[in-house]
C-alpha cells in the first residue's frame, strides 16, 4: 500500500514539473506571447484586450498557471492554428496510433527477443551464440530512418508487397472509436472485417518491422547478458548439484532471475521505442503523434506543440513508472519500502 502511495506521489510531482515546463514553453518560444498562444495578430486595442483577458495574460504568472492547469483538467486544451480543431480531439486521434505502433513493436521484441536471448545465453560462447549476437549487433546499429527508407524501397517500391503509407486503405471507412485501428475494425459495422483486417495488417507490417528490428536486437542483447550472468551464480551450480534437470533449472531458477533485471531496462527502452515510432511515422505518413508534432513544428503551431509535448511526456512517464512499480511488486529481493525512481 505504502509503495503505491510513494509511486503516485512521484507520478503526480513529475507530471506537475512537466506541466510547469509546458506552461513555460509559451514564453520561451520566439515572438509575442499572445501571438504564440492564439495565432491571431490583434487587429485593434480592444481586440487585444479581449484576447489578453481570455487567456488571463494580465494576471501574475501563478494565476496564469493555475488557469492553465484548470483548463487542462477541464479538457479545454486549446485549438490548433492550422486545423482549427480542438487539440484534445486531435491528440486523441494521433496518440493511439503511435501507441498501437509502439505496442506491436514491443510485442514482437518480447516474443522474439526473450526466447532468442535465452537461447543465446544458454549456448553462450558457441558459434550459435556468436552468430545471434553479431546479428543482433547489426540490427541494433541500423539507424531507424534509414532502415525504414530501405524497407519502403525494397518492399513497397521494388517488390510491391506492402503499401507505402497510411494506416488503412481509403476504401475502408472506419469510424473512429478507440483510435486503435485493429479494434476499430472489429467494432465497425457494415464493412468486410477480414478484408479490412488484412489491409490494416499490410499497412502495419513495414513500420512495425522497422521499429521492432532495433527493439528486438536490444532485447536479445539484454536477455542474453542477463542469462549469462545468472548462469555463473552459485545457486545455479547448487541446483545442478542437486540433480535437477536442465529444464527444471531453466524454468525455475534461470528464467525468473534473468528477466527480473531486464524489466527496468525495458522501461528505459520505451523512450527509444516511442522516439523511433515517431520517426518512422513521419516516413510512413502514419497519422500518429510524431507525424502530427512534426507538422505542428513546420506550421509553428505553438499551442499544439506544447500540449503534444505534454501528452507524449506523460505517456512515457506513465509507462516507466508502471513498469517500475510492477517490477517492484514482483521482485522479492527488492525492499518493498525502497523509494520510487524514474
Amino acid at each position, binding site marked *: 500500500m505504502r509503495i503505491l502511495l510513494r509511486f503516485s506521489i512521484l507520478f503526480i510531482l513529475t507530471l506537475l514539473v512537466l506541466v510547469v515546463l509546458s506552461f513555460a514553453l509559451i514564453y520561451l518560444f520566439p515572438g509575442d506571447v499572445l501571438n504564440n498562444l492564439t495565432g491571431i495578430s490583434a487587429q485593434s486595442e480592444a481586440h487585444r484586450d479581449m484576447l489578453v483577458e481570455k487567456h488571463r495574460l494580465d494576471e501574475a504568472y501563478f494565476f496564469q498557471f493555475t488557469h492553465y492547469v484548470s483548463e487542462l483538467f477541464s479538457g479545454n486544451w486549446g485549438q490548433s492554428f492550422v486545423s482549427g480543431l480542438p487539440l484534445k480531439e486531435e491528440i486523441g486521434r494521433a496518440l493511439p496510433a503511435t501507441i498501437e505502433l509502439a505496442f506491436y513493436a514491443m510485442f514482437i521484441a518480447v516474443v522474439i527477443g526473450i526466447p532468442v536471448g535465452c537461447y543465446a545465453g544458454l549456448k553462450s560462447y558457441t558459434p550459435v551464440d556468436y552468430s545471434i549476437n553479431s546479428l543482433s549487433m547489426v540490427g541494433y546499429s541500423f539507424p531507424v530512418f534509414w532502415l525504414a527508407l530501405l524497407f519502403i524501397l525494397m518492399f513497397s517500391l521494388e517488390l510491391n508487397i506492402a503499401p507505402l503509407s497510411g494506416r488503412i486503405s481509403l476504401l475502408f471507412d472506419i469510424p473512429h472509436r478507440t483510435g486503435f485501428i485493429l479494434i476499430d475494425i472489429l467494432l465497425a459495422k457494415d464493412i468486410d472485417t477480414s478484408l479490412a483486417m488484412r489491409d490494416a495488417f499490410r499497412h502495419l507490417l513495414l513500420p512495425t518491422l522497422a521499429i521492432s528490428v532495433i527493439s528486438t536486437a536490444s532485447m536479445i542483447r539484454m536477455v542474453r547478458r542477463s542469462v549469462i550472468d545468472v548462469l555463473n551464480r552459485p545457486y545455479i*551450480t547448487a541446483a545442478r548439484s542437486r540433480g535437477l534437470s536442465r529444464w527444471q533449472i531453466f524454468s525455475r531458477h534461470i528464467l525468473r532471475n534473468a528477466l527480473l533485471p531486464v524489466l527496468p531496462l525495458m522501461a528505459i527502452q520505451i523512450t527509444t521505442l516511442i522516439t523511433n515510432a515517431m520517426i518512422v511515422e513521419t516516413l510512413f505518413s502514419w497519422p500518429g503523434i510524431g507525424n502530427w508534432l512534426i507538422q505542428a513544428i513546420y506550421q509553428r503551431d505553438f499551442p499544439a506543440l506544447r500540449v503534444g509535448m505534454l501528452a507524449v511526456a506523460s505517456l512515457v512517464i506513465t509507462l516507466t513508472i508502471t513498469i517500475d512499480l510492477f517490477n517492484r511488486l514482483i521482485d522479492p*529481493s527488492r525492499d518493498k519500502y525502497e523509494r520510487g525512481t524514474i
Partner: protein
Amino acid sequence: MPILDIKNLTLEIETAGERVKALDKVSLTINSGEIRALVGESGSGKSLIVSAISGALPQKFHLTADRMSWKGKNLLSMPTEERRQLMRREIAVVFQNPGTALDPSATLGEQLMESIPSELVEGKWFWQRKQSRRKSAISTVHKVGIKHHRHYLNAYPHQIPTDISQKFMLAMALISQPQLLIADDPTRGMETTTKTQVLKLLTRLNQTKSLSILFISHDLLAISSMCHSMTVLYCGQTVESGRMKMLRKRPLHPYTKALLDSAPSFQKDLLPKSLLPTLDGTIPSLKHVPIGCRLGPRCPRAQRDCVITPAVRRIHDHTYSCHFPLHMEKL
C-alpha cells in the same frame, strides 16, 4: 568397501596459456557408513574436490584421475543423465556460502520441495503429491532444528539469517535421503549450541541410516569428536590420510602435526600465555606453487630431497607422503 574412491585426482586450471595444477594427485576414499574429515587451510583445494565430485566444475578446468568411482561405477565416463540421477538420489552436497547458493527469487519452501526426488513423494494426484512434498519439507526442516517452519518456508533467502540458511542448505541436502553427504563447512558462523545440534544430527544420521559423510571444516575439535577418519590437504596435495585416532596419536607428516598443534584443545600441557606453535609463512598462491612437496619452503624438516614430490607411502590404512616423516622410530 569404499563407496567413493578417488585416486590421483589432478585438476588443472588454465590461466593465461599456462596450466596450473590446483589439485595434484589427490586420493580420497570414503567407506560406506564412514564420516571422513577433509581438512586443510583455506585455498588448499577442499572446495575444488567438492565441485569435482559433484560435477560442478567449469569447462575450463581439466580433470584427470586414475580412478574416480562411485560404488564401482566410473564417475568420469558416466553419461550426463546418469550422473544427474546419481546427484539427485545418492549424493547430496552442502555448499559453502549458503547466502549465494540459494535462489534469491524463490521461496525457501519451493527450493526445498523441488529437491525431493519424485519417488519419495506419495500420492497420485498433484494435490496429494503437493501435500506430501510439503509434509516431508516440514519434517526435514524440523529435523535440522528450524522451529518456525511456517515463517521460514515462505521466506526468501535474503530475509533470513545466515545460520538458518545454512540449516536450510543442510535440509535440502538431507531431504533426498542420500547415501553420501558432502558437507562443505556446514557449521560455519553458527554459535556453539546450534553447531552441536547440527553435528549431533549428522552423527545420528550416520549411525541410524548409515549415511556416509565427507565433512569439510576448519573446526578440529568437531572433527575429532565425530569423524572416523581424516584426510589432510595442503595446497592441492594430500599429505596424510588415515584413521582419526592414529593421526591424533602419531601424525607422520610435519604438516598434520603443525595443524593439530595449532589447536589449543589438543594440547594438555599448554602453559598459560605461551605462544601456539605455527608454521611460518602462508599457503602459496596457485601462481607460485613450489616444486616437489609443496610444503617444502615452510616445513621445519625440509631437506634437499623435498624438491622431488614424495611418493605415497602406506602403513596399514594410514597413508602419508613425506620423505622425512615424524615418529618413525616408534613404529
